[in-house]
């Protein structure tokens, strides 16, 4: 494992998004003595399968799993996350998360922390999530738009065959393995998410799988 390497891992099916995402990655400040790598997983069977493929294909200690429609605008992101990962009990960082996962397992029905610019085709906006004090807030689930890890745990591609719940599942895996998950205290958003409209056609089936698999430790 290379402790001085950071790898971006992205599942993509759209070259326009992939190249735009890459443009933002190219503008990031690279910490001294660190190497940056980028893996695009094309046409993965599922996001969990794609992320497993990416995770196993790199020797980078730090991995940034991101959606193709996420553009990182905090040029200092890499330095910021390395600072947070100085605490070796922190396993994963996200941009948006829940301190307490709602009992239904639907993250947006809970109180979320974080900071993000989103575009929903008709308009762009900054999400007004719960404020908090300190460098970061410990959460028990994060949104998959961007997940940053310093330890490797397999993604549950045996359970989640679509594009939903891989993120909350991975959050549970990290917590069950004894790691903390945090959302940084971002004064302004670190990324834009061009997330369009939510497609819930497979969401509820995956929710059932999630609820059956994990006994949710809702409160931290």
């Amino acid at each position, binding site marked *: 494992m290379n402790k001085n390497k950071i790898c971006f891992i992205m599942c993509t099916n759209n070259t326009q998004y992939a190249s735009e995402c890459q443009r933002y990655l190219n*503008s990031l400040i690279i910490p001294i003595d660190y190497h940056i790598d980028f893996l695009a997983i094309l046409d993965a069977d599922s996001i969990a399968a794609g992320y497993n493929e990416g995770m196993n294909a790199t020797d980078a200690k730090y991995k940034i799993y991101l959606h193709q429609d996420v553009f990182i605008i905090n040029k200092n992101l890499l330095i910021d996350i390395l600072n947070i990962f100085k605490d070796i009990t922190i396993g994963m960082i996200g941009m948006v998360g829940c301190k307490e996962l709602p009992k239904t397992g639907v993250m947006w029905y809970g109180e979320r922390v974080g900071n993000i610019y989103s575009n929903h085709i008709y308009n762009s*906006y900054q999400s*007004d999530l719960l404020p908090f004090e300190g460098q970061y807030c410990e959460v028990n689930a994060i949104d998959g738009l961007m997940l940053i890890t310093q330890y490797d745990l397999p993604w549950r591609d045996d359970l989640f065959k679509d594009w939903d719940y891989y993120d909350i599942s991975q959050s549970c895996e990290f917590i069950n393995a004894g790691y903390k998950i945090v959302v940084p205290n971002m004064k302004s958003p670190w990324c834009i998410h061009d997330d369009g409209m939510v497609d819930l056609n497979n969401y509820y089936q995956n929710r059932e799988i999630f609820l059956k698999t994990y006994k949710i430790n809702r409160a931290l």
Partner: protein
Amino acid sequence: MNSSHNFTNLDSEENINNEINELNDWNEKYGIYLSAYTNRINMLLLEHSNIALNELSNLFYDKQFIQQYKSIPSIAYMIVIMTIYKDESGDSDLTQTILDNGNNIDELISHFKEIKFLLWNIEFDVDKSDALVILNEYIANGHITITELTYIIQSTSINRVEIFLNISRFLRFNNNTKGALSLLSNANTIFFVNELILCEIADIYFQCGCNEVALKFLNMIENKSECTSCLKNKWGLI
């Protein structure tokens, strides 16, 4: 800002079941026609005759169609695109419209996203200079109209006033004063009585020697700040 603070009352299995039922209902009643609508829209875009574009416009005037399909990404993009087209087609000076940028929905969305991405490059300073040059070229060669640019700024940018100012200044710098003024005029309609925009418009008119028009815009500003004083000072009015 969108708030996520008040959703906790929706965190129940009863609510989830209602949502699933609504989704299934929608799929049964409307989802089954989506591919037929998509094919028809693509056919009309490809045909591109006046009759075809008229039929397309009528579809997007249909409130029921909009209501039922506005949450489908491809239709949502087309709703915005057809709103732009409606405005553009009312302007007899224009030789091109947004619909000339693609023969089907996917191509038009790709065009829309290209402009959206350029605007974010400008806003978040990622290859900003290149983005401004490209946008300026696109405007100069008619690839996009000021009307289209205005709508995409509205739907895409976070700090919209700043983006309007940024682009209009770049257009001015590249001798497209007419384009700059047109963009600022649209911005002035959206952000009525915004000092920064009114000062920018006034500055253009002062530069052109139209001092009376410039003053008319300056007089529209209700709460004048340092920005207005600076402009007056620049043109020897103080």
